[in-house]
């Protein structure tokens, strides 16, 4: 098949196994430029179905940049150019024919800082289904909102005040509201960019717990600056350094027995 040829035709310096047995996303030789400044170069990595994969590395190494390639959020940044190929279910999402609207419904995103809309809790969750026309009556919408909030572990805390503003919740609740908003449009993949960096340890623990449940239904790519978090939540871990994917492998392996010297230095705290 032509697609498969495409997927095989690449070069990589990455240590470890970039492949996945049951890949959902396949990225090949992805490079990103911000106004001619190269942010990441030739990153090739498979994301498995219903797996949690962590992207770790020192700040500025290009983790967020790589993450934003999967739902083409980089398109919204002026002067940002993406090279290479990313296949989502065998379809190159950087193909000219691809519309970002359905893509972003399929690949949800949760941001570093909780960013609920300045609207009610209900409207925050209902916004996605509404603009995509997923349902056409109030009852089905109520149902989506309830299920999304339940799956995000927020329902019990907010079911009595769905009309109150989403921005009035605590940080951790806001972040779970953002997760509910993302899963309300039934995505297959959820991207998370340091979702806990603005949260206290208790709220962080809640989100990490939630991630394990979500992994039953979604592929999750999570950027984190906390190695402990990566170790706790993910099956696989990818280590980035200065815009390159240095090493990738099973989380246990990366944290106990890294192969590359740069990974070793980072894990042991010599780069940070």
């Amino acid at each position: 098949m032509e697609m498969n040829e495409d997927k095989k035709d690449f070069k990589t310096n990455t240590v470890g196994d970039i492949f996945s047995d049951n890949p959902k996303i396949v990225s090949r030789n992805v490079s990103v430029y911000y106004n001619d400044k190269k942010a990441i170069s030739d990153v090739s990595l498979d994301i498995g179905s219903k797996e949690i994969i962590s992207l770790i590395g020192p700040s500025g190494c290009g983790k967020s940049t790589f993450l934003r390639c999967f739902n083409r959020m980089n398109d919204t940044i002026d002067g940002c150019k993406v090279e290479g190929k990313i296949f989502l279910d065998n379809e190159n999402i950087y193909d000219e024919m691809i519309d970002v609207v359905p893509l972003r419904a399929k690949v949800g995103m949760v941001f570093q800082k909780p960013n609920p809309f300045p609207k009610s809790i209900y409207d925050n969750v209902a916004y996605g289904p509404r603009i995509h026309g997923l349902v056409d009556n109030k009852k089905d919408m109520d149902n989506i909102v309830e299920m999304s909030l339940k799956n995000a572990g927020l329902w019990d805390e907010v079911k009595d005040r769905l009309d109150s503003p989403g921005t009035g919740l605590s940080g951790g609740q806001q972040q779970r509201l953002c997760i509910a908003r993302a899963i309300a449009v039934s995505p297959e993949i959820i991207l998370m960019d340091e979702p806990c960096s603005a949260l206290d340890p208790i709220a962080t623990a809640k989100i990490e717990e939630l991630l394990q449940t979500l992994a039953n239904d979604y592929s999750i790519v999570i950027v984190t600056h906390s190695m402990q978090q990566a170790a706790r939540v993910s099956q696989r871990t990818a280590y980035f350094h200065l815009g390159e994917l240095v090493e990738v492998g099973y989380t246990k392996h990366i944290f106990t027995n890294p192969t590359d010297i740069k990974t070793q230095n980072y894990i042991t705290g010599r780069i940070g």
Partner: protein
Amino acid sequence: MNKSLMNAKDAELIVKSSVLKRRRKDKRLKFYGRSTIFIALSFLVFLFYSIFEKGIPGFFQYYVTLDVNLDQKRLDPKGDLSHESLYNGDGRGLVLEALYKVIKPKGRKEKKSAKKIISSNADVRIAKMILNDPSILGKTIPITFAVDDDIDSFLRGYIKRDTPESDRRINDKVINFVDILVKENKVIYKFSDYILTGSASRSPEIAGIKGALIGSILTLVVCFFLSFPLGVATAVYLEGFAPKNKITEIIEININNLAAVPSVVFGILGLAIFIGVFGMPRSIPLIGGMVLAIMTLPTIIISSRAAISAVPPSIKDAAYGVGASKLQTLMHHVIPLAIPGMLTGTIIGMARALGETAPLLMIGMVAFIVDIPNSIQEPATVLPVQIFMWADFAERMFINKTSSATIILLVFLILMNAIAVFLRNKLERRW
């Protein structure tokens, strides 16, 4: 020990003395700040005092009450109660007869002097009363008439009794008649019927700002409906859709420059294009509004862009993140959050437009217009131009009326700002 470091005691002393110095400097700065605020406030108080001191009396004027015999034949010569017939009637004669009954002038000379007392507008007043209520025809009823502006000035004390008769605008006989009227309790000082509801006139006692006020409102309405949608649309395009290239850059620089162009230039532009090229009539609110719209556009665009770019990018990310298109992100999230800021900018622009004179002079809105405009296509003048014209007239009463009109302009401005604040508070989401 490191030699270059001071010992702690010395350092403490130096820090202490410098603290005193710094505190003194702080105090001095505070004092300077307060003094400038005080000076600015005093100017403001002075300004308001001088405007109100002259302006408040401008809202009042002297009237004479006379029992007028509303003779049907003489008031309505054609007998059909038509405008034409009533305005040809001899109201003036009847008013003078009523006046003569009180002051009893002897001979033609005295009668001629007495004629000066009542405003020339008396017959129009009677005609209007009859149009309102024809049943008063044939009766004798008391009617109040504005006194002529010279009499008004005399009653206010601006024209002094002890100036020699030859230097006075009114002679001894007239003063004598006025004294009789005062003694007979016929003279009253009350809120002016004309200042708010009259239109432009060369007779100061009947001149009012209604025409100019309506002209201003019509002009501003045109200005708003042109500049707000255009300005917001331009801002949205520039912030959200315009490609970042040389052409966009040139457009942006030009918009910023336009905001600083003297307003009279926009008047010249309007004169050349709307009147010169398109041959539209002069002096009409439509053109005035168009010129002011061009003038306000840069302000609205700049403030709208600022409001749009002040919307947190995280909100846009959130919308894009769930798959909203660019237009949806703008319409559902960015513009609702930016609207209060846009409105504030618009009202500031409109307030400036309200006070603008120069560009309107260029397109002929300075013409002397007696009729009150009914549409944006009828000649009109506007408040600031009216003020400008009144300030130029010599009659004493116009000095007061100029300040009165200024007060009305200020009230109008405050009203507009109040609406802006109200709208902003109402539209601003507090979460």
